[in-house]
């Protein structure tokens, strides 16, 4: 029972402002900037890792780049400036969200294209359907039982 109470409450209070008691030192910065640093680091790829963000990785380069992000936030740079800083050094590869440009148009437009093409084909096919066989035809029932019976004669279709 206590366990239940214990788990109900955190969810409800999860978003209340965090108390600032004799707190641990947040790594160098105020909560708003720290949140920004997390958001940025979460979108950048760690180049030396297999497939991890620099937020998640403990590789040295990731640690260094996290430090860069914090320093640049402290220096008053905007998120875009920091992203550009990274791209200038490591290329678009560092961005987990690829920039929209000529070469990525298909990537970004693809899902919408699939969606509309899918529904276009669907609706056209449904409209065009000629008067197909009547619903659950007797033949079909018959054929089903014939097949189930293992009859080898192939009905002409």
């Amino acid at each position: 029972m206590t366990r239940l109470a214990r788990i109900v409450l955190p969810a409800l209070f999860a978003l209340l402002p965090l108390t600032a008691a004799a707190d641990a030192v947040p790594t160098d910065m105020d909560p708003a900037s720290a949140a920004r640093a997390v958001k940025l680091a979460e979108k950048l790829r760690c180049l030396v890792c297999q497939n991890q963000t620099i937020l998640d990785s403990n590789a040295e380069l990731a640690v260094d780049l996290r430090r860069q992000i914090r320093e640049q936030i402290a220096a008053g740079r905007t998120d875009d400036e920091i992203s550009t800083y990274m791209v200038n050094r490591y290329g678009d590869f560092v961005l987990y969200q690829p920039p929209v440009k000529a070469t990525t148009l298909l990537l970004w437009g693809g899902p919408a294209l699939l969606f509309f093409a899918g529904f276009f084909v669907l609706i056209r096919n449904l409209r065009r359907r000629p008067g197909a066989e009547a619903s659950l035809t007797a033949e079909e029932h018959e054929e089903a039982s014939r097949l189930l019976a293992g009859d080898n004669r192939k009905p002409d279709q």
Partner: protein
Amino acid sequence: MIPEIGNFALILALLLALVLGTLPIIGAARRIPAWIGLARPVSQGLFLFVVTAWGCLAYSFIVSDFSVLNVATNSNSQLPVYYRFAATWGSHEGSMMLWVFMLAIWTLAVSLKSRHLPDEMVARVLGVMGLVSFGFLLFLLLTSNPFDRLFPVPADGRDLNPLLQDPGMVAHPPMLYMGYVGFSVAFAFAIAALMGGRLDATWARWSRPWTTLAWSFLSIGIMIGSWWAYYTLGWGGWWFWDPVENASFMPWLVGTALLHSLAVTEKRGAFKNWTVLLAICAFSLSLIGTFLVRSGVLTSVHAFATDPRRGVFILGFLIVVIGGSLALYAVRAPKVGLGSRFDLMSRETMLLANNVLLLAATGSVLLGTLYPLFLDALNLGKISVGPPYFDAVFVPLMTPLVFLMGIGPLARWKQTTLPDLWHLLRWAFAISVVMALVVPFAAGEWKPLVSFGLLLAFWVVAATVVSIRERMRSVRSGFFAQIARQPRSYWGMVLAHLGIAVFVVGVTMVKGYETERDVKMSIGDTVSVGGYTFRFDGISQQRGPNYQAIRGAFTVTRKGAYVENLYPEKRQYNAGGMPMTNAAIDSGLLGDLYVSMGEPVDGGAWVIRVYSKPFITWLWGGFLMMAFGGFLALSDRRYRVGAQRDVALPRGSAAAR
């Protein structure tokens, strides 16, 4: 000696697979009963040899026979016995062996559970599975033999990758492969039907339980994988859209579409062409997934062996199997009938829309996964496609799908009308809107996205309740009698759909309300997250069976009252490698508390990550519900009755012998 037996068994299995992949299929085409009759016994023989080979490999791991290269590279004498066993599939060779083993299990299952099918059909189905087995066995023997010897014999093994030394490793790969490979059955049925020119309602009826079973296993496999990543990688993520995750997710999406499409083909005889294509696609994506993982064409957290020779082999095999199937499809599919008539507004159309959305989602995942490869191959630069992209494209595609999920079960076959649906669902809609608007306040802060996510979840639940009520109205008896009156496949669907709702709640709440703090803590410091206070009590040295660990001790309190202790660890395995982070997690129905240790910093302080993840367990709970929905549907009387009735038909066995 044992490895040689294993190797020999593999060779014999290869020969049997070749027999299985040729004679019964030719026999079915030329009507040679003796060859048709080979299918079952050869399948069973194939299973016997594959299980022998696999057993030999497992045995070599358990007894730590380091004269086997595979064992020496992926195991260690200090490794606990259950991880030595799991190390059987810890390497590239071992996981391909597991693949073949799973395929043999499915082949055996089909050979045993197909008594009610025409022998000719069984011959083709088992033959197709035999061909797939043949390809993979050849791959094992030529490029990835798990029994290769090593001389001189090392004193000890190099150890299993520490990331894999986890209970998740014991359960995740077998479950995942069981599902992955299980789609081979639906695939084989589809190819057999194309070969025989008999693509009809009965074909759909036979494929359906196998698809459901494979899909359920795949759901569990994906769920365990996600959960494993969550607690083992130390950063609290549960899905990263990593190529390997996508490789298992794409067959799942197509498998989900296939399940729904099979329902229509079975019940209404409609869109057979489409269903058979889906059956081919589901397994093809499993194969492509295997290629992506095994060839190293994509960087991923899972990147194992990367050897272009292996890649070329699998690619060649893909071209034969998938290319061959699609060519067969192009040639044979037009002969198939059109199916029965239905209106533009009908359950059929809704299920088709479901298919379009699921396929668009699959296509998007495939596009995102392979796009970096496309650009690179065209020399247009290197990019990364990660979670921000997938989140951005996936949610808009899933939203109408979840919305349709509420309506679909209430729509009638053949014809339905909007006013009818609106009449049935208006209260469900109103209630879910109101709840979605109000509930986020109770969680502390109203956020539009949370409200939106909850709307979808409540909508599914409310519409499902309406569907149940509608169903029961027709039966006049007590409540429990009414429940029992509905077929289990119906309850399976209800459970799976509610599973989606539970999953959506989990995603919404975690994304909306998770809190994370990345702090530098000295001993005695406290940090508060989600209303809980964590005190860093100190660190101690621990010795595991094959690792040394630094264990942090944390006391969690809530408003001054003691809650519990949490002990995250940093492990250094004796056999070397990167230190591992083992997070300490207090898991609960309404959320998790998660502590993981980062790096030590000056003055005895540590970088500590503390998370509060509300409702995260619902993610996995939702997937489990879906899987159990599948199992429940499988236990439906209809399938069993169907089987009995088929047996009862006297001509069945006689005619085919």
